[in-house]
Structure formats: structure tokens, C-alpha cells
């Protein structure tokens, strides 16, 4: 167990890297996923197609394959950047598909009459979505969205393993393979690092859930 104390700086650095990957990806996936959900319920058929194609592709592809495609595909398209950048993009694209479906089911939980009344007073589609439907969808969207984000935090380990490096998981691997620490003890440290992210995250979500269910 001494490894956790001895190598604390490496753990801390890994923790921060994981946190960075997760923060960027969470913000990206929430924004992109909400926009995609808007596409999926939009009156414009090409937008609906983009939305459902996105979900079909990214929900049915293993994350590792998505990361591979991003890291090797984007440079082909002339987009260059660090592995960190590609890792975040891959995780964002992948998670956005799940965010989209959670938000869409929330949108569907709001009675159709709300959107009709919004359109009837002359709000545009995007106004009716952002001012009337999404605020009411929030209540049903928070719990499934929480699961999506927690899954994303765990998936960030795949991003780390995929060459981004320096995150909790990659640093753990380095400790066992390169520096010869006992795997069990190292992994306990890694596990603690993830729990520090996911458990408070879960508690925060619970609070948020109670808050949005009180607010009408």
C-alpha cells in the first residue's frame, strides 16, 4: 500500500489529467448532445437525419474504435493536434450520442401541447425548444444524464490508455509495468482516484435532481 504514499505526485498528476479529460469532454458532450437532440426533433428532415445517423454510428461503435478513427482520421482531413486533443474529441463525439438520447427522451416526456402553444404564439422552433421544452425536460433528463457522465468518467481510462497518457489509469499501468510495483496496491490507488470523481459526482447529481424536481 506504500505505493500510494510514495508515488502520490504521480497519482495526483494522473488524477488531474483524468479530471481535465473529463471536464472538457463533459462540457463538449453536453453541448453537442443537446444540439443533436434538437436536430432529432427538428421539423427539418436533413437535420433529423444527421441526428439519428450520429446516434446510430457512435452508439454502436466501441469507444476504442472511435478514438482510433479520430486520431488517424482527423490528420487525414488536415486537422492536427495532440493526442490529448484527439482523445477529448473522440470521447466527446462518443458521449454526445448518449447525451442526445437522454435529452431526446426528456423532450418527449414534455407534453406536445407545450411546444404547440409555444409555436402558436410565434416562437421559432429553436426558441420553443430552448425556452419552453428543454427547461421542462431537465427534470427527467438529469438522472439518465448522470449515468451517462459517470460512464464517461470511466471511459476516460480508455482515452488515457489510447496514447494520451498521464491520466490515472495510464500512470497506474506505468507504476506496475515500468516501475514494478505490485499491481493490486497500485490499482487500489487508481480506483480511489476514480471514486473521488464519480462518487461526489453522483452526490452532486442527487442534489441537482432534487433541485430541478422542486422547481417547476
Amino acid at each position, binding site marked *: 500500500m506504500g505505493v500510494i504514499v510514495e508515488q502520490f505526485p504521480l497519482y495526483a498528476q494522473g488524477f488531474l489529467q483524468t479530471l481535465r479529460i473529463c471536464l472538457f469532454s463533459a462540457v463538449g458532450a453536453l453541448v453537442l448532445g443537446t444540439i443533436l437532440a434538437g436536430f432529432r426533433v427538428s421539423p*427539418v428532415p436533413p437535420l433529423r437525419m444527421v441526428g439519428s445517423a450520429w446516434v446510430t454510428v457512435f452508439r454502436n461503435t466501441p469507444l476504442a474504435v472511435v478514438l482510433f478513427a479520430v486520431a488517424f482520421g482527423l490528420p487525414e482531413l488536415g486537422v492536427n493536434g495532440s493526442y490529448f486533443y484527439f482523445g477529448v474529441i473522440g470521447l466527446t463525439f462518443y458521449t454526445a450520442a448518449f447525451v442526445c438520447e437522454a435529452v431526446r427522451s426528456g423532450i418527449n416526456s414534455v*407534453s406536445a401541447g407545450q411546444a*404547440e402553444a409555444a409555436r402558436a404564439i410565434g*416562437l421559432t422552433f429553436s426558441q420553443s425548444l430552448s425556452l419552453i421544452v428543454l427547461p421542462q425536460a431537465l427534470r427527467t433528463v438529469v438522472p439518465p444524464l448522470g449515468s451517462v457522465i459517470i460512464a464517461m468518467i470511466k471511459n476516460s481510462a480508455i482515452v488515457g490508455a489510447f496514447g494520451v497518457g498521464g491520466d490515472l489509469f495510464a500512470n497506474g499501468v506505468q507504476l506496475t509495468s515500468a516501475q514494478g510495483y505490485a499491481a493490486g496496491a497500485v490499482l487500489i490507488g487508481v480506483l480511489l482516484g476514480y471514486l473521488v470523481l464519480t462518487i461526489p459526482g453522483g452526490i452532486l447529481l442527487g442534489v441537482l435532481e432534487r433541485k430541478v424536481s422542486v422547481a*417547476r
Partner: protein
Amino acid sequence: MTNTPMIRMASVDKHFGELHVLRDINLEVASGQVVVVLGPSGSGKSTLCRTINRLEPIDSGTIEVDGKELPAEGKALAALRADVGMVFQSFNLFAHKTILENVTLGPLKVRKASKSDAEKNGLALLERVGIANQRDKYPAQLSGGQQQRAAIARALAMKPKVMLFDEPTSALDPEMVQEVLDVMTTLAADGMTMLVVTHEMGFARRAAHRVVFMSDGEIVEDAAPDAFFSSPTSDRAKDFLGKILTH
């Protein structure tokens, strides 16, 4: 009164899949006129109402509001809808907004009114429909009658050229029907152009200039209220009146 009708529907047809819900509808509503639409359940009254602000698109024919043909989905359609007030059977007040917010949202976001103007006008309208004291409550805290009056105020806040009502009192407890009809009667007397789907015969006799009777997606009769109620010409209208007047 100008020569351009406020609403003009010509040769309008609509299907829901196999079901032919609107058959060759021709209807004109002059500015300032109040038209009541009657007919058995499923005859297409709601659909007719909803095609006028294009909540339901049509298959063929033309619909004009104040001389302008309905635009396709987009900004122009939103602008047209702002001029056409709609009151639903189930009120559809925005559940997460207070009554005053419900009434000011359209003016703020669509008409780009200032907050103070929107609130001043909104409060005046709430006053007019008798629920100014409910301004800070949420819709679920109001009775059905109060909610429907708020919904009428919300539509009026857009200063519409015409108001569509789809069975505005059908979801109300009997003791609340009159308070909503009173608001509508006053509105009619003030010269608002109105198309009202309702089963309230008293309102039709008192406030309507014309009664349109629909059956199976067709307009079967179009007459003055007195003429329609005393001497309906079609068997379908006679049958319909026989059923509702015996209740």
C-alpha cells in the same frame, strides 16, 4: 370592414394516412366576424382549426390569413402565427412559468417588447380576464377556468388579428364554463375576429354571426345561428342537433 377576408380557405384537403379528415373545405371569415364550428366528434373541427396557423399542414388547397398565404415552416410562419391567437382545449399554459410570465413571454421574445411594456400590457390583460391577483402563481395552482382565462390573455397579448378557439370549455368543470364564455363574449362584442369550435349552443346563439356545421370532414351547412338552429337543412345537422338538444 375591408374586402379581404381575415381567413380564407379554398379547396383545402387533408388526410391522416388513409383517413380523409378535411374534404374540399371552402371557408371565408370576414374581419370582425365570429364563426362557430359545430359537428360531431371526429368530424375534423380541431384539424380545421389547426390548419389555419399550420400546426397541421394541408395536402392541397390554399389558406390565407389577412390576404397572405400561409408560408412554409420557418421564420415567416412564426411571424404569421404571432398574428393568429390560439386557445386550446387543454389550456397548454407553460407549466414552468408564472401566469404573468406566460402572458409576457410572447411579447418579449417575439414582438421584442420592453419588459416594462410587456408587463404593463400583460397585467392589463390579466385584469381584463379577471385574474390579475393570480399573476405570480404557476398554472397548476389555478382552477381550470382561471387557466383558460390566462391562456386567452396569453393569446391576446400578441395583439392577434384573429383568434382560434378549439373547444375552450370542454375540459372545464361545469361551474367554470360560464366565466370563460363571458370573456369570449366580451371579446366578440369588442370586434375580434373569432373562429370557435364549441358545443356551447348558448354562446353560438348569443355571440356568433355564423354557424358552420361539419360532418365527416366536410362543411355541410354554413348559416346564421337562428336559421341553423331553427331550420337545419341537412339530415346530418338535424340528427346532430337532435342529439345535443335532448341532453
